[in-house]
């Protein structure tokens, strides 16, 4: 179905289309919207937190509600906003960049999305059923096992479901990159964003199971009377911290590496130069991922692992600054002597470099184990990770959304509004978080719902809250821009930014089969090679032939729904065994649809050659 056909279709059929789609571009759009929804939700929670802290001894929210807000802000932003937004951009761009018609497992891809979305909804249902999780996004035991109500149960079950989805997504991307590249697209010709997708997927694959186990143990402790984290029964609370951070530290690289990849696409495009030091960029990415697995205990310096363990983890942590530094310099050298265009994605890239460098610097400070005893659990840590996650990942996500918006929706976002958005967000971000470094050094602890008067903390907290309003204003402007652009802007060409990689060789948005004939890749930045040495169009690597396509399916949605229903049943069976009925129904739906998937032959379908010939030249324009 072409885009025009989709537009004419009624609401019901569009809904059905998106519920059943296995097309990576549509799934990407779903991920971006799902992630953005949770981004707004997490942002609202952050605003309430900042309003509470606008003045000393404020009573805007209660202590309990504050705990829920800050827990859900962290959980939402990490698991339900940042990661899905990145996975969405991966879905939109990566298969196009490597010249593939789809991902390796279209069905699994859809399953990954629905598990993420419904898992996220499960976590958030807790707001309406007597209280959200309130033990911090890290849910440290024993606080998490003694937390009253069902908040933490929603946390463990909801994140479990979301985590399965992420794992599916990661495996799918890994296989896609390995087997689905176009002829001539060798690994070392892959765009950096595809490389970082690949590496981040490896991190997902090996990091998420640790969280899976941690969440299972938490669920067992809370709902089934197990004793993993209960010291009075021989349990050990440090096990949770280890499991959580064995997952949690690679997680921050899952968040930052794809953002690095986005900047490595944006900066060359708008500097009109190939990426400086491509192979060292790849090497640095791999090295960061490798080191990322052996630094988790730097989150636990104050636990008492002893000076030797602390020293080893401190040194490994500081070593990560080296490959990251390589990247920073490579971006700077890419711009050096280039013809720079200050488009809004480029502004985010330019804003990212100094912001992220500050975050990296405080990271090395926190990595010094002895000094960390001073910084631990203060606003200095908050300032640090917001500098890397907002200054790195969120800037990257915005740059990516704006950059690939034409590939998603066929229009270019309004540049003027986006410039306003950037400046509001950028200034607001630094206003909010720069002062928090000093609040932390002054000793203001994180997660407290009030601070006292006359401690010298008033002014900086006020500035921080004002900054948060700037960021909110910028984000609202961005939403307005999305609506405005879709209503008013003209149809974009296939290559609105004068791009260098394969996704710009197809129309915006691309045909549902992506490439009528797979392109022949002659080197790094394949489209740019054709622009400078060829006729500006990709040459086909195969004769025109039938294209094999996967069938749409409602099963991924049904499966995820079943698992979520089962999860809710599991949460409430402690109150009333009748809830086991709900759990069993959920599991029957879940395993039943799995069985249907296995039993029913799904061979896909073919687009006949004749139909492709009729559609004209879909390969460019």
């Amino acid at each position, binding site marked *: 179905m072409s885009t025009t056909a989709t537009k004419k279709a009624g609401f019901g059929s569009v809904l059905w289309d998106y519920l059943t789609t296995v097309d990576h571009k549509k799934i990407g759009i779903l991920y971006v919207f799902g992630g953005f929804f949770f981004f707004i939700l997490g942002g609202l929670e952050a605003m309430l937190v900042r309003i509470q802290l606008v003045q000393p001894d404020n009573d805007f929210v209660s202590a309990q509600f504050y705990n829920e807000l800050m827990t859900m802000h962290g959980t939402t932003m990490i698991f339900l906003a940042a990661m899905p937004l990145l996975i969405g951009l991966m879905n939109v761009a990566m298969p196009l960049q490597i010249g593939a018609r789809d991902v390796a497992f279209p069905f699994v891809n859809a399953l990954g999305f629905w598990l993420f979305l419904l898992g996220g909804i499960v976590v958030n249902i807790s707001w309406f059923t007597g209280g959200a999780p309130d033990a911090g996004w890290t849910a440290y035991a024993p606080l998490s096992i003694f937390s009253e109500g069902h908040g933490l149960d929603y946390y463990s079950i909801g994140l479990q479901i979301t985590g399965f989805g992420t794992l599916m997504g990661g495996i799918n991307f890994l*296989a896609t990159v390995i087997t689905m590249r176009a002829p001539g697209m060798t690994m070392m010709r892959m765009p950096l964003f595809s490389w970082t997708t690949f590496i981040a997927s490896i991190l997902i694959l090996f990091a998420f199971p640790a969280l899976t186990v941690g969440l299972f143990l938490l669920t067992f402790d809370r709902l089934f009377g*197990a004793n*993993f984290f*209960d010291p009075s029964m*021989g349990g050990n609370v440090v096990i949770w911290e280890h499991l959580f951070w064995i997952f949690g530290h690679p997680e921050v690289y899952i968040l930052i590496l794809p953002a690095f990849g986005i900047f490595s696409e944006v900066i060359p495009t708008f500097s009109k130069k190939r990426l400086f030091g491509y192979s060292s960029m790849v090497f640095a990415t791999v090295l960061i991922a490798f080191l990322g697995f052996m630094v988790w205990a730097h989150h636990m310096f104050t636990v008492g692992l002893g000076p030797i363990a602390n020293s080893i983890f401190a040194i490994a942590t500081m070593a990560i600054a080296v490959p990251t530094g390589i990247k920073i310099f490579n971006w700077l050298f890419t711009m050096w002597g280039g013809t720079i265009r200050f488009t809004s994605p480029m502004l985010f890239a330019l804003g990212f470099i100094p912001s992220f460098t500050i975050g990296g610097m405080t990271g090395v400070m926190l990595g010094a184990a002895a000094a960390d005893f001073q910084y631990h659990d203060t606003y200095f840590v908050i300032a640090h990770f917001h500098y890397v996650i907002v200054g790195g990942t969120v800037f990257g996500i915005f740059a990516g959304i704006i950059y690939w918006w034409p590939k998603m929706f066929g229009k270019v976002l309004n540049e003027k509004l986006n410039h306003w958005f950037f400046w509001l967000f950028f200034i607001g971000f630094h206003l909010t978080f720069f002062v928090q470094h000093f609040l932390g050094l002054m000793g203001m602890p994180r997660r407290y719902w009030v601070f006292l008067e006359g401690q010298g903390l008033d002014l900086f907290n006020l500035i921080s809250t004002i900054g948060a309003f700037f960021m909110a204003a910028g984000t609202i402007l961005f939403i307005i821009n999305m609506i405005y652009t879709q209503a008013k802007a003209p149809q974009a060409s296939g290559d609105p930014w004068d791009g260098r990689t394969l996704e710009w060789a197809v129309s915006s948005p691309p045909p549902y089969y992506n490439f009528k004939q797979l392109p022949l890749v002659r080197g790094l930045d394949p489209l740019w090679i054709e622009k400078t040495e060829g006729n500006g169009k990709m040459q086909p690597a195969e004769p025109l032939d039938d294209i094999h396509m996967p069938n749409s399916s409602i099963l991924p949605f049904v499966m995820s729904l079943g698992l979520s229903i089962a999860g809710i049943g599991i949460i409430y069976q402690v109150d009333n065994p009748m809830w086991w009925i709900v759990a069993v129904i959920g599991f029957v739906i879940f395993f039943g649809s799995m069985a249907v998937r*296995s039993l029913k032959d799904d061979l896909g379908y073919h687009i006949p050659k004749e139909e492709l010939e009729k559609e004209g030249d879909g390969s460019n324009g």
Partner: protein
Amino acid sequence: MANDLLKSTNLPQDPERATLEGKNKFLGFWFFLGGETVLFASLFGTYLALKNSHLDGVPANELFGLGLVFAMTMILLTSSLTSVYAMYHMKNNDAKKMNLWLIITVLLGLSFLGLEIYEFQHYVRDYGHGFTTSAFSSAFYALVGFHGAHVAFGLGWFILLIVRNWKRGINLYNAPKFYIVSLYWHFIDVVWVFIFTVVYLMGVVG
């Protein structure tokens, strides 16, 4: 072309990897097993940290009897071997023999599972060693139980595939399915070897 996928004549040498879909499944499943390795590693780590926290309950060296567990080990190892025979016959396009060996695999798997259930209820009834008794018991049942759940899932998977493809023979569409379930079966076998060593042998001796 679609019909070619379901034909069981003229199969290539490695029917499980002859199509792109098959290759993807093969590769993706290896990745999945990589993730599963971390899952079990985390459970092993938890178990090792908590194995001496038995409080007033029975410690590991009084609880475990190696005879039963050795029998279970042999049964599961043999079932891995029989699944290899099944794959051998799959590659030779001999559906009858493949199904026979798959059924033997399932029977061995079922007897393993039966013995494990007997073992668990024996611990609970005769030693008072339940899931909630101590941190040690929780960690033991979590690790061994996760493995048992994997065995149960694998058995369901085998049975589903055997029933579905009983009459239609081997083709390029179902060969990858048979192949990855046998990969999965080997993996849970390997995990069991570690459980046998780390939980039972080290529990009795160490």
